[in-house]
């Protein structure tokens, strides 16, 4: 075991998968010589060379499109989108090509790509360096979407994603990159896709969240513990497909569901979670399904005061949980 942060976990996963499987290549802006703007690929170009760690022009559609084409012909590309906010030029390639190629070729082609994209706020990045865009991709069957919250999961999910035969969009909450550390085994392991983690057992309500918000939620749960409110915190880890069993088992136990995400509320993942709970566990509910999310504004505002107003925090989460528990 060694104590590492999220960015190191991602780098280790890439390095280990590249060492183990020569089909694994990396494409992205500034990923080679300088090792990525967040240093996720630091040292990999020096180790694996030009053919496997490929600096790309600033052209996201080409980055993902080339990854898809390479995957169709037998490679295992990992494409890096420098910030999730820049993923939109590649949206067509991801949603119309990667997600649909297996279906439209009746299983003839499959598309084992990973698209890594640093997401989320909290680093004063303002409008185009703070977005949480996961909901767009969760609406596209054919894709898998993951969002780790900690180094152990970051490494295990990335390894699983690279080995997975289908396209995986891998959102890294950059606010966790250097703030969250874990003991991570040095031996090979994967965290399977589609499996949530119960981070904290509780009786009174179920809190469903992912990414950076796992940490705010756990803090909120500790605050409420002192008030005798016992919160069960579930880190979804994979957003598509959702681990319905873990979610529903918990809600049937606690009878109350609180959903937390940074992305804005309308049409966000919370809406889908609420619908699943209503459809599958309606008779168990003993309070309104509640969401704590970013507000419905177009993007993260720049001023530090406004960014704080936008972001869900442990205090905001605790307020909502307190109300729901008392319902």
């Amino acid at each position, binding site marked *: 075991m060694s104590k590492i942060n999220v960015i190191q976990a991602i780098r280790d996963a890439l390095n280990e998968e590249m060492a183990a499987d020569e089909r694994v290549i990396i494409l992205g*802006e500034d990923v080679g*010589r300088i090792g990525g703007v967040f240093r996720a690929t630091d040292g990999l170009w020096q180790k694996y060379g030009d053919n496997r760690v490929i*600096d790309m*022009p600033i052209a996201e559609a080409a980055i993902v499109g080339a990854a898809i084409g390479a995957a169709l012909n037998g490679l295992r590309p990992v494409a890096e989108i420098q910030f999730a906010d820049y993923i939109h030029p590649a949206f067509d390639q991801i949603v119309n090509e990667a997600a649909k190629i297996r279906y439209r070729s009746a299983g003839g082609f499959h598309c084992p790509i990973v698209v890594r994209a640093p997401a989320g706020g909290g680093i004063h990045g303002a409008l*185009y360096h703070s977005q949480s865009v996961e909901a767009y991709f969760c609406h596209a069957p054919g894709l898998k979407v993951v969002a780790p919250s900690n180094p152990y999961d970051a490494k295990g999910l990335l390894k699983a994603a690279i080995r997975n035969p289908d396209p995986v969009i891998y959102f890294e909450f950059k606010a966790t990159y250097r703030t969250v550390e874990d003991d991570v085994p040095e031996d090979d392991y994967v965290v399977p896709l589609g499996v949530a983690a119960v981070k904290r057992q509780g009786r009174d309500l179920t809190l469903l969240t992912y990414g950076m918000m796992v940490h705010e939620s756990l803090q909120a749960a500790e605050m409420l513990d002192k008030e005798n409110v016992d919160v069960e915190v579930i880190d979804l880890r994979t957003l598509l497909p959702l681990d319905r069993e873990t979610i529903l088992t918990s809600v049937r136990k606690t009878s109350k569901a609180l959903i937390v995400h940074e992305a804005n509320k309308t049409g966000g993942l919370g809406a889908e979670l609420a619908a699943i709970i209503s459809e599958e566990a309606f008779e168990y509910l003993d309070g309104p399904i509640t969401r704590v999310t970013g507000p419905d504004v177009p993007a993260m505002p*720049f001023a530090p*005061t406004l960014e704080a107003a936008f972001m869900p925090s442990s205090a905001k989460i605790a307020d909502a949980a307190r109300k729901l528990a008392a319902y």
Partner: protein
Amino acid sequence: MAELSKDELLEIYECMQLIRTFEDRVSGLFAEGKLPGFVHLYAGEEAIAVGVCSHLTDDDFITSTHRGHGHCIAKGVEINPMMAELYGKETGSCKGKGGSMHIADVDKGMMGANGIVGGGGPLACGSGLTAKVKGTDQVTICFFGDGASEQGTMHEAMNLAKIWKLPVVFVCENNGFAESTPVGYHCSAKDISDRATAYNMPGFTVDGTDFFAVHEAAGEAIARARQGEGPSLVECKGFRYYGHFEGDAKAYYTEEMVADFKKRDPIGKFRQGVLDRNLVSEAELDKIDAQAKQTIEDAVKFAEESAYPALEECLTDVYVAYA
């Protein structure tokens, strides 16, 4: 240089020096931890923004980039609100909502710095289309970098501008690097302006550190656009003193390159050029230098004394009307 009056030359110098002073000061403020967020500095490229924008009025439009401070100043955006915007203060150009990468000013025809590389090309076409439909002689300048020249949006925009014969001038600021990636690697063309041939529009490459070269080429392109003769592509080759963003270790710069930058300094070159020809006096230029420093210090004071926006501002400016 002959057609520019002494007053014009002094104004040009003042504008370039304001940009340089602003950027150098912002670098320091960032290092001191006074600015939230990231900044991308324009120092070294002053001759391009000023060489182009000195042909424009407030009625003309520009689209800008993540490296937009120079474009803002050259297009006449006020310094105090700009600096306040970098601090995220309520007195900022965008009430603190945008920050460095997103400064916009409707009154000055500044359609916005843009955190998305290649985001401005199609917008410039739309702005050009408006002028064409309305029958005005307004021109739109699309500033973009060598990195953006590889985005699909820029290719779509240049094609569109040509088929519609729009009054748009595409000004490529080729500073040699797309973030850290050298243009010789990321670009298939020898000169980015060579691509103009494919769009069947005039294309030129000029020395982006030479104000007069930029001014002349941009002037011709803007005149063509104003007269309804359609778009052009002007590539200005230059450099940036600072890294892609403040905090960038600049591992891709060599010592020789940096030494060469100093020799090619656009402001130094301009200064020497006008002094050698006795068009202005050294005292006049020195006075402008001192004034620029004072203007920027005043702006820093203005920004620091301003308040952060109220929390409710997080929820405003979303729709014109909610129904």
